[in-house]
């Protein structure tokens, strides 16, 4: 009982995300992709024309309102603290390469869990990859890896990310039709599949608030278990998995197997290594892609830089045939993951203040 008493908030947060994500699928979001921070940022990159893959272009309101929800919550609870300046370019590239890994596997840690909850067993290999990636990251952190401290920043600087999200919301609602065709919205494929905007907005706004309050973080969850045998965040992630699974059963969305899973492929090696790359990048940047959104909402400009790195990485990954698809990995997936791993390993190894 003590366990529930100490961790109920984070367990409820996981429950809420799990159930809402599966409902978003029910109402129109792609299968096993009720929420995927990586995929949705990739869709935004597509809508802005950073890549021209016609089937994955949409301004996903979930991403916008994760940031806005967290922003409002941090204002309400006096935790809005604009800060930044901790090696932004490195954080940009960590986000950039994290997206490579995510698009080779086809999902962020949240989607990996949602895929598992939907019966996609390929996700197990991906989650294993995340754990190994985080484990490697922890070894660097234990040996003094740091990107250095951030410093308090101007209030206005902390408002940039939330304001950018409002700008994207305007693009989504107004849909200006420029002669260039931008913003682009998919007419078929995953990008065309989305829940009603009002439902996505409300769901994401509430998740933004809950996650800001509870510090929900999939990467922190695994890291705290390995590093400190602390199951606080992990109880939230397990709750997400369990309740998404139950909800999928009720909604008839549970279809177990390896083959023919929605927006997934069965290349075990690169599913694994892609997620090792992502897990390591997230660990080195201090949080999962969802957490980076929530942090950017509460004024963490470095987290905002990571997010923009991810969106840029998505554009690059699709333009340069790095991203995988249901048909399998892309011609350049493997090389891109290797380059990303080398970058992360070098970052972890050489960016440290002392040898322990």
């Amino acid at each position, binding site marked *: 009982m003590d366990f529930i008493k100490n961790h109920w908030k984070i367990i409820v947060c996981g429950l809420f995300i799990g159930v809402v994500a599966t409902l978003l699928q029910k109402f129109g979001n792609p299968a096993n992709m009720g929420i995927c921070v990586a995929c949705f940022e990739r869709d935004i990159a597509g809508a802005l024309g950073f890549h021209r893959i016609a089937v994955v272009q949409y301004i996903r309101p979930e991403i916008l309102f994760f940031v806005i929800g967290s922003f409002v919550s941090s204002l309400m609870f006096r*935790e809005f*603290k604009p800060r930044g300046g*901790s090696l932004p370019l490195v954080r940009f590239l960590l986000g950039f390469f994290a997206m490579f890994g995510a698009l080779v596997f086809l999902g962020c840690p949240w989607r990996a869990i949602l895929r598992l909850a939907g019966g996609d067993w390929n996700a197990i290999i991906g989650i294993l990859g995340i754990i190994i990636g985080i484990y490697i990251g922890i070894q660097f*952190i234990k040996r003094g890896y740091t990107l250095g*401290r951030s410093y308090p920043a101007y209030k206005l600087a902390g408002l940039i990310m939330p304001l950018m999200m409002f700008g994207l919301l305007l693009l989504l609602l107004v849909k200006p039709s420029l002669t260039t065709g931008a913003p682009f919205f998919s007419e078929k494929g995953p990008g065309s599949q989305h829940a009603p905007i009002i439902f996505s907005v409300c769901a994401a706004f509430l998740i933004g608030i809950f996650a800001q309050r509870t510090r929900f973080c999939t990467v922190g969850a695994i*890291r705290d278990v390995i*590093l400190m045998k602390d199951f606080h965040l992990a109880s939230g992630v397990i709750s997400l998995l369990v309740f998404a699974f139950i909800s999928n059963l009720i909604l008839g969305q549970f279809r177990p197997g390896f083959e023919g899973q929605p927006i997934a492929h069965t290349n075990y090696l690169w599913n694994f290594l892609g997620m090792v790359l992502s897990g390591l990048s997230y660990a080195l940047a201090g949080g999962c892609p969802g957490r980076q959104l929530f942090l950017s909402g509460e004024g963490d400009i*470095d987290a905002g830089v990571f997010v923009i790195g991810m969106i840029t990485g998505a554009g690059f990954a699709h333009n340069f045939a790095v991203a995988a698809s249901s048909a399998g990995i892309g011609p350049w997936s493997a090389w891109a993951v290797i380059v990303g791993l080398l970058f992360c390993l070098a970052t972890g190894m050489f960016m440290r203040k002392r040898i322990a």
Partner: protein
Amino acid sequence: MNRKILDLRGLSCPQPVLETKQAIENPAFESLEILLDTQTSLENIKRLLGNRKDIEYKVIEEGEDFKVTLLKAKD
């Protein structure tokens, strides 16, 4: 008494809690003062100290920051 001070402000997760953990696990640990700038780091450190009866700690708000003083409990 010469008290060790750790300035952990502005560091990404999990560096503040990890550095605190490493400091209190050092056999020479007697007392420590740490500076934090986010509620999140403070919560992490409270969870770290929550199940340790051998350390007493006190949190003081200093403007935007938190100062935590840790002391090895006398038994």
